[in-house]
Structure formats: C-alpha cells, structure tokens
C-alpha cells in the first residue's frame, strides 16, 4: 500500500494533467481550472513547508554528524532564521506585525533584498567573467579541425555582437547572426527533439508506474 497509493495518485493526476490539452469540453476545462487554482495552490503550500523542513533537517543533521563543510550549514540556518524572523515581523516593506525600524533603517524583506540579495547575487555572477577569461585562455586551443572551427565561430560571434564588428565590416554582424540562425539552430533543434522525446518517454514511464525510482528505496 505504501508504494501502490503513490503510484495510483501519480497515474490519476498525470492523466488528468494531459486530458485538458486535448479535450476542450467545458466540463474538462472547469475541472482542470479547479484542480489548478484550488488544489494545486494548497498542495504547493504544503510542499513549501515540507521543503523548508527538509532543508533544515538535512543541515542540522550535517552539523550533528560533522560532515564535510558542516560549518557552512550554520550560515544557512542562521540566514534562514534571520530572513524568516524579519519576513514574519517586518513584512515585505515594513508591513509586518511589529515595527522593526531603527531610525530610517527598516528591518524588512525589502532591506534584505536590496542590501544582501542584490550585491551577493551580482557579485557571484560578475566573477564568471574572470573565470571565463582565464579558462578560455587555458583551454580554448585549435587542437583539431573541429576545435579550429569552433574557435573561428566564437571569434565571429564575439566580434559580430559588438558595435566594433560593424566597424570592421558591415557583413560581420550579419554573418554572426547567420551562425546563430542556421548552424546553431540546426544543432539546437536536434538537441531539443532528443530532450523532448526523452522527457516524454520518462514522463510516460513515471505515469504508468514503470519507472519507480522516485518512490525511494523503501520496502513494499
């Protein structure tokens, strides 16, 4: 029963998710609307609580067992608690249940967003440019014909997307655009077909109960 019930649930809701795409009848569409607008929202709220609980459990466990890099779990837990407290009491923009400001400084989600999330996020992404430059210098070698072609295409696209490319030759941006529009699209389309067919096969296997690894390794 422990495994059968989830399998039945996945089968029923998997099929219910597919049918509205093919049956435009109002009864089906209304049922789909109800499932999405009412049912799914409640489900997501539970999933959120479950997810947060699970996240905390994993990191508390990591600290207890002193697993590799366990110190970082403290940062996560402390940040989690601070954000939760500020969010609960300060609200999004000082609209929480308690006044949480000192002078003009407000402890609310907006403050965290602009003073913590923004600079940290931007910093992480900005570092990419340095790593990319260093990695390209070390690894981007014309070792074979394919690598040389890739290198040439990269140079054309890199220059073509810049105003400088237009100054070098008015054909360069058009050529860069052609590389993106034709050879790139041809390759991407092949990948897309492969991914779509793979996803379809996996989804069907899960809905029909053939693929059961998502159930975990518990006993029947």
């Amino acid at each position, binding site marked *: 029963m422990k495994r059968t019930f989830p399998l039945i649930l996945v089968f029923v809701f998997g099929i219910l998710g597919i049918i509205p795409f093919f049956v435009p009848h109002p009864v089906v569409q209304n049922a789909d609307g109800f499932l999405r607008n009412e049912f799914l929202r409640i489900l997501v709220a539970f999933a959120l609580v479950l997810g947060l609980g699970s996240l905390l459990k994993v990191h508390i466990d990591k600290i207890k067992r002193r697993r590799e890099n366990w110190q970082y779990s403290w940062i996560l837990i402390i940040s989690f608690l601070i954000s939760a407290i500020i969010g609960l009491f300060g609200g999004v923009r000082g609209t929480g249940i308690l006044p949480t400001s000192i002078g003009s400084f407000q402890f609310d989600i907006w403050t965290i967003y602009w003073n913590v999330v923004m600079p940290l996020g931007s910093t992480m992404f900005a570092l990419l440019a340095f790593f990319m430059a260093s990695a390209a210098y070390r690894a981007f070698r014309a070792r074979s014909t394919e690598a040389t072609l890739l290198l040439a295409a990269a140079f054309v696209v890199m220059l073509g997307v810049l105003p400088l490319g237009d100054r070098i030759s008015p054909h360069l941006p058009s050529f860069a655009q052609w590389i993106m*529009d034709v050879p790139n699209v041809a390759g991407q389309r092949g990948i897309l077909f492969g991914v779509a067919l793979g996803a379809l096969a996996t989804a069907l296997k899960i809905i029909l109960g053939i693929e059961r690894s998502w159930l975990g390794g518990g006993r029947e």
Partner: protein
Amino acid sequence: MKIIETLTNIDRRIIYLILLIVVLLPLLFPSVEKVRVMAPVEKLYYAIDTIPSEKAVIVDFDYEPQTAPELDPMGFAILRHVFERRIKLLVLSLYVQPLGLAQNALTQVTEEFNSVAKTNADSIIYGRDYVFLGWVPPPIIPILGMAESITSVYTVDYYGNQTDTLPLMQEVTNYNDVGLLVSLSGSDIPKWWVAYAQSRFGLPVGAGITAVSASEFYPYLQTGQFSGLLVGMKGGAEYEEMVERTLKIKVRRKASEALLSLTYAHLVMILFIVIGNIGYFAKRRKK
C-alpha cells in the same frame, strides 16, 4: 623557449587584473555606443508597436539580481515604449525574487513620465494605465489560469488591491485581451510561455534573454513562436536605440553605455585566446 613558456603560462591574476581594468574604465567614464539594430530586436519592437489599442501587453519580469545588468535595460526600454504608446500594461513575475526589480523598473519609468506630464491624461496612473499583478506560485497556475480569468488567478495585486476593482482589469479579462507577452528572463521561462500559453491558447510571446543562454532560444525565433528576441546587453542597447530613434525619448541608455566595457572585455578574451594558441603551436613545433 622562455617566451613560449611565458605565453602559455600567464598568471591568472594578470588576466583578472587586465579584465578588471578594461571593464571598469568605460563604466567610470561612460559614453554611448551606437549600434545597428538587428532583425530579432526590430521584430519585437514592431510587435509591441502594432498592438491594437484594445489589447494589452504583459511584461513578465523573471530575472534575478545576477542577470539584472543585462536584462534591466531591456525592461526599462520596453516600459518606456509601452507607456509612450499608451498601451495597456500588466506586469508580473513567476518567481518571488524578481519582484523587487520589477517594482524598481516600474517606479523609475513612471516617475520619468509623470515628472514631465502636464495633465492627468498625460500621466501614467496605476490601475488605469498599468497594473502590477505580482507573484502567484507555482508558475503553471498563472500561465494556464490567465487564459480563463486574470483576476481569478491574481485576486489581489502586488500592493494588496483587489484586482477586480481596478479600471484596467475591467478591460483586460484574459489572454483574448492580450496582444503580446514579453518574458524577460535569465532562465528557461520564455519557453514555458511558448509551451503552455502559446501552444494551447495562441498567446503571442516575445523574449529578452541573457547572451550566455541565447543559442537555445533561436529555434523558437526561427519558427515564429517568438515574436521577437532581445539578446544580452547588445539586445538591450538595440532596443534603447529603437526607442530613442523612433519615439524621441532621450534618457540615459545603460545598455548602450555598457557596450564599450563589453567590447574591451571581448577583445581582451580574444587576445588571450590568440596568445594561448600562439604559445601552444610554438610549443608543438618545438617538440
């Protein structure tokens, strides 16, 4: 021999330092780079420009602080275009993080317009000209649900107002009243709009994406599933160029200013790749 060794083993800190200088200098002394507007950007511009007056445009701000330098200028330029043409506007995010950036863009652009407005009709007024719907999780609910009724998915807007009391929402009830949706994102989100909202309900979709993810979006442009595509800083700069040239809106063009940084950074990368290859071939010949 020593030269070859030096060419193939430049210390990474030197690369970082040079890159830092070439990126930083043009940002400290900004100048606007003129760009040639390419077809994908032009397509999106005219897709917005030709939206019938009874229809609205939805702008989906779905990028996070990491990708804001690339995508913010697109968002600002599109908002300016939409407000200048007095097209009805709905703004939303499928995730919670981009809400702050969306609100920031809306506040700044509405202030730009309202600071020069002489009458009430000239002003950009919340509820009449635009509505900030905010965020409803999970993403599939608004994407599919707005086809039936926007106000039943977003019962309250970002500011807590009942959406069905806002004048604009009396005119825009579902996708039938929407001429175009523009998704600005650093992830796969524009594809979701195509997969769920366009394939099932025929909603026209345009996209603004980061340069690093551009290659995977071109198939959708070629098939016409995207009404237009803005790619990276250059896409933003091209849209800014279109807005300035056709609508005569003269404001600070952040993407166009950043292009010089991007140019130098690309040149430095090309230079280092060339140096690395010279060293590699010299070493190979020696062997």
